[in-house]
């Protein structure tokens, strides 16, 4: 796997800047006292990252499957570790997405987070560094470092700024689950690095470099072991049924700002696309039926439970489980449509889940609850909020013309190609998801006002309206112009599919 260096493309280490700009902003925040200035500097930093990420996207070469904007500095050479950042079509769009979410979170928490805003902003910026690091690191151990770094701000955010009475326990759940996965992840990575010793051309040394490992075959036995370790870790993170128990708790108890990252950035699915598929293709192909079955079960399981949730945030958690199941079904199809569909779906979820959770936050601020018992008739008081929720809901349902559809369509198309009639079961999600989301919308926003606090609710304030407009416009734009988004991942995914095909044939010849 060749790569194009950042020096050739933009002339400066853009990825390192993206990763460390939030940290620099965070340090700067430490010296500021005024709340107002804090928020402005934080937003400026996040905005700069967003601008830089858009530059990255603009300079990205869509025609090649190579890693781009690469930077590599040796780290611990005896162990084959290096500080190695690069992006390809799979990862490039997650960077502006992350940057956008951070900006949106900062805007939406402008006036709602009053407790220790400095630490809040610092935690969010730390998370941004870790998340961009996760999306750009192509050294396995470096990835792991960023992966673990994410835990700290996440834990602190849930624990300190959560709005549920049991936020401490939710935070603990999250950390325990993630640590369990991390242990498996580290073992898997080390196994891969060690097995590289015996690969031709390795010279007996270790390597944790993704582009290097992609080109060196791994014995099937090792592949299977690594597959299960990595799959466990990423399934916990995603979260895929039946490892999702931490998510409803974290969404219900945690602050909206954190929930956006937990439900919006599907790093588990990304981990599958980034590491599992390219590194252990034969094991993945051999066990893709398991992934498909788990995916289909998750799709129905999440949708059915979402159907009976009276609380919007729990509903979203289970809708999220359902969406992840769909994404995994796409991955299991191992063809271009399925993989690109999964990628599109999780990018879309970044916008849709963020939109829905922000809306949940707005509702919570106004009414003090996201439970149906306290809602009803909101649309009469807050028409703009209702419109925003409806747009996001329709995208969550997968309606054509919103960003929810292309991913869902391609995933199911890929799945029908790969698995015959089995995915027909998953198509029922089209009905169940619509019922779950729209029944909630009907009861919360339509009908007579039952709760006096609803009568006092005001519509979106300017800053909230800006975030809603950004997300709403992007949701519709991605729905009408999906090809523009799909083109970014096209070369990389085609290359990945070629690798999967060729390695499968090699494996069968063996």
């Amino acid at each position, binding site marked *: 796997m060749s790569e194009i260096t950042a020096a050739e493309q933009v002339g400066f280490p853009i990825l390192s800047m993206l990763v460390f700009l939030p940290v620099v902003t965070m*340090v700067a*925040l*430490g010296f500021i006292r005024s709340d107002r200035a804090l928020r402005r500097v934080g937003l400026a930093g996040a905005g700069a990252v967003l601008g830089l990420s858009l530059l990255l996207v603009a300079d990205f070469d869509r025609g090649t499957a190579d890693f781009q904007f690469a930077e590599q500095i*040796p*780290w*611990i050479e005896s162990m084959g570790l290096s*500080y190695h950042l690069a992006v390809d079509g799979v990862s490039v769009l997650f960077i502006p997405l992350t940057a956008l979410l951070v900006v949106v979170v900062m805007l939406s928490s402008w006036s709602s987070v009053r407790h220790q805003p*400095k*630490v809040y902003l*610092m935690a969010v910026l730390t998370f941004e560094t870790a998340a961009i690091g996760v999306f750009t690191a192509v050294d396995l151990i470096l990835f792991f470092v960023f992966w673990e770094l994410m*835990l*700290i701000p996440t*834990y*602190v955010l849930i624990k300190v700024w959560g709005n549920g009475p049991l*936020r*401490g*326990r939710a*935070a*603990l759940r999250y*950390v*325990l689950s993630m640590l369990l996965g991390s242990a498996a992840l580290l073992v898997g990575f080390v196994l891969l690095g060690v097995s590289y010793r015996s690969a031709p051309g390795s010279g007996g040394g270790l390597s944790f470099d993704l582009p290097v490992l992609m080109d060196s075959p791994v014995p099937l036995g090792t592949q299977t072991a690594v597959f299960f370790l990595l799959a466990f870790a990423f399934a916990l993170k995603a979260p895929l049924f039946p490892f999702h*128990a*931490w998510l409803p708790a974290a969404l219900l108890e945690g602050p909206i700002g954190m929930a956006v990252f937990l439900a919006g950035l599907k790093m588990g699915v990304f981990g599958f696309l980034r590491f599992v598929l390219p590194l252990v293709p034969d094991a993945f192909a051999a066990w893709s039926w398991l992934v498909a079955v788990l995916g289909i079960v998750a799709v129905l*399981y999440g949708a*059915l*439970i*979402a*159907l*009976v949730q009276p609380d919007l945030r729990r509903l979203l958690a289970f809708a999220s489980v359902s969406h992840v199941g769909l994404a995994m079904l796409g991955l299991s199809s191992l*063809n*271009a*449509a399925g993989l*690109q*569909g999964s990628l599109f779906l999780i990018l879309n979820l970044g916008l849709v889940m963020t939109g829905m959770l922000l809306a949940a936050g707005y509702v919570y601020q106004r009414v003090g609850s996201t439970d149906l018992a306290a809602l009803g*008739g909101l649309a*009469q008081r807050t*028409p*703009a909020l209702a*419109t925003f929720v409806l747009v996001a809901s329709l995208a969550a*349902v997968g*309606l*054509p*013309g919103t960003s929810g559809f*292309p991913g869902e*369509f391609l995933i*199911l198309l890929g799945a*029908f190609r790969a698995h015959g009639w089995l995915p027909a079961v998953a198509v029922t999600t*089209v*009905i169940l998801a*619509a019922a779950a989301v*729209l029944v909630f*919308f*009907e009861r919360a926003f*339509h*009908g007579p006002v039952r709760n006096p606090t609803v009568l006092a609710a005001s519509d979106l304030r300017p800053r909230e309206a800006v975030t809603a407009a950004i997300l709403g416009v992007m949701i519709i734009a991605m729905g009408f*112009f999906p*090809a523009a988004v799909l*083109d970014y991942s*096209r070369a990389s*995914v085609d290359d990945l599919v070629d690798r999967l095909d060729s390695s499968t044939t090699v494996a069968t010849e063996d």
Partner: protein
Amino acid sequence: MTEVDLAAVGVCALPLCAAVANGVNALTGERLYGHVAVARVGVGAVLAAFALSLYVAAMMVLRPGTREVTVYRFIASGDFSVDFGFLLDPLSVVMMLVVTGISALVTHFSVNYMHNELGFTRYFTVVPLFVFAMLVLVMADNYLVMFLGWEGVGVCSYLLIGFYRERPASAQAATKAFVMNRVGDAGLLVAMFLLVIHTGGLRYDEVLPQASSLPRGVVEAVGLLLLLGATGKSAQLPLGTWLARAMEGPTPSSALMHAATMVTAGVYLVVRSSPIYDAAPSALIVVGVVGAATALYGQLVGYAQTDVKGMLAASTTAQLGLMFLFCGLGLYAVAIFHLVAHAFYKTYLFLTAPSILHHLHGGADPTAVSRPADTARLLGTAALAVAAGLLAAPLVGRVLQPGRDGGLTGNLWVVLALGVIAIFAAVLSARRMTAVAFAGHAGHTGDEGHGDAPSHPADQASRPRTARLVAPLCVLAGLVALGFATEVLPGGLPGSWFQRLLDPSAVGSDAVPLGNPALATLFTAMIALLLLSGWFGPRYLDRFRAELPAETRPAGERRLYWAALNGGYLDEYYARAILAPTMALGRALESFDKAVLDRPFPPLAVPQPAGWETRFLAVRSAHAAGATALAEPPERLDWLTGGPADGVPVAQDQPAGAVPRTAAGRRASAWSERSSDRGGMVGVLANSVPRLAERIERSFFQRGEGQGVIAAVANAFARLAERIERVFFQRGEGQGVIAAVASAFARLVERIERVFFQSLDTGVAKMTGIIAGITDAVEGAVFQRGVERGVSSAAAGAQRALLAVERRLGQPPVIASILALALAALIVGTR
């Protein structure tokens, strides 16, 4: 792009622009421009779209042929690629004319009808959006973009049915319509997947020519799945029950969507896919059967309805059923003709309905109304005449021009019979409508929430001027008359001008698939049934009206009437047979989720000490040196929750196994509180280390007290080991090495049992406890040190340090500098 192409794009784009402009205006609180401008933008865009459609149609007539317009690449992945493109052929042009023409009239009509409504701008956002979506539906050159429009009209329908936000009934009806449509959409999606897999694309000109060469099973499946989609959108059985309640929306929008245009999308889909149905005769038969059954159902339900809009909805269902029946017979052109005719006819009826109701309701205020009966009677008569005239047309044409029937002689009677039914249905429903209206609420027994008038009380206060209401009606009547004039030619029958116009798209319409005698018999029976129901239905049903005394007829005979009144109880059936089990399944899965998948975590409910824990503590206190130790003030628990760190080491200098036991017990019970709040991750991680110390005590010195099978076995093993030890080594019980090992084993097993078989709410905590116990056992056994010394005390020190760090977390410069230092160390370390 040529001018015609641009015009076609403009037809689509103009309503979209109007929708966006009005939508932005609505969202900004109507600060950009006022209601007059809103109406002008909406009506103007739709009128312009109609004008452009006329231009496109004229060009189509001048230069016959099929045009394709590609706007942009819509979606592409792997070898699958679909463009956002339009197909301009006679079928789509006819549909464009119908859609834009009816929409222009209805939007114009709506300006007055809606002028007092709160959501005026919202209405004039959704209606142009609907026009856009409907145009995408009929103009698309592939199934995917068609589906985009298909769902778009579904959303607009959802928005308009739920237009009156404060009414729960309308919101429910909207959700119901959308979800039932989604059932059909799921079928449509699967049909598309099958088409992509077997033909490689979704463009009509790629897919349809290949239809005859596809495997029979595939093409039949595709046909049935497309039909499923069509039944959802066109309110056919078994998905049709949403239409009756869709009348909750404003009447003009009901006219536009739920009578004239949107609900005909299913018919359009079937006609567009006619090559598929030609290759799938079984699916085509199902189309016919579904259509016939729905027509019958719609008629029966319609006779029993007591409000005008309910009657109109049922009549629409029936007419759509007839269109499907035509399709099922292979008479695609007739179906399209009926679609066009029905669009005008039903719009007319819908738009006159509120006029009549206006007069009737205005009658309560004698000063406001002048001669209501005359105008209403005029409108009613016009409605009747138009209905009769339009639907008699095929028959008239048949009689006037008997020589032009082409290849249809064998089935002439079929068409004749259908014509008769159509007339019955139309005339009867129109008669019923006017009868209800003139009888002075004769049928308005229980429909106050369902009829038209209550939906906009404000409208009655200031009724629009009659002249402006009647004007578009007159235009409509003129159009209808025009249709009537042209209908001297048989509508859509082989050889007619309409058939010739549609020729390139409505392929194979001469072939009426009635070769199979059984099938012919089936259709004959169905048609006979329709005829009979058309004739006897109203007569029979009228005798069992709810208002009549119950004893006039036996209860058994009234059942038919009640069934018809309630739409055949289909909704009740769905609620009981599908909805309730689905919800029950959802709840069952949720309790599974809570009971099983949540189990290994600290509980999210308020902590309740589990039964075993209470027992455990009781045993513990009995064994402890003093039971009073438990009653110590609990402030020492603070250290567990990240509070004062000085409480960390409990009795460090005491030998393990004596007093600390009680402390361990308390700590165990305090686990849930500890994790609840304020501890911070650092605190929790640090806490886990001293907990090792507690675990060893329990593991070593606690007698087994489990009740489970595994625990019993393990305990037996432990006792055995102790006995051996006593016998061989002469040591006291529970003091020797073997006893320790065995007891640890027993504990371990018991713990496993608890984790898996009992309601252990702190599973993970216990698991770490087990590991802790083992580590401490090693320490105790190998190094012979007191538990609280050694590793444990080191951990306690570390914990204190970490807690101090965490307490300072509130002071960001400290974190910042720590992180900066760590970063610096990392960077230095790498060099």
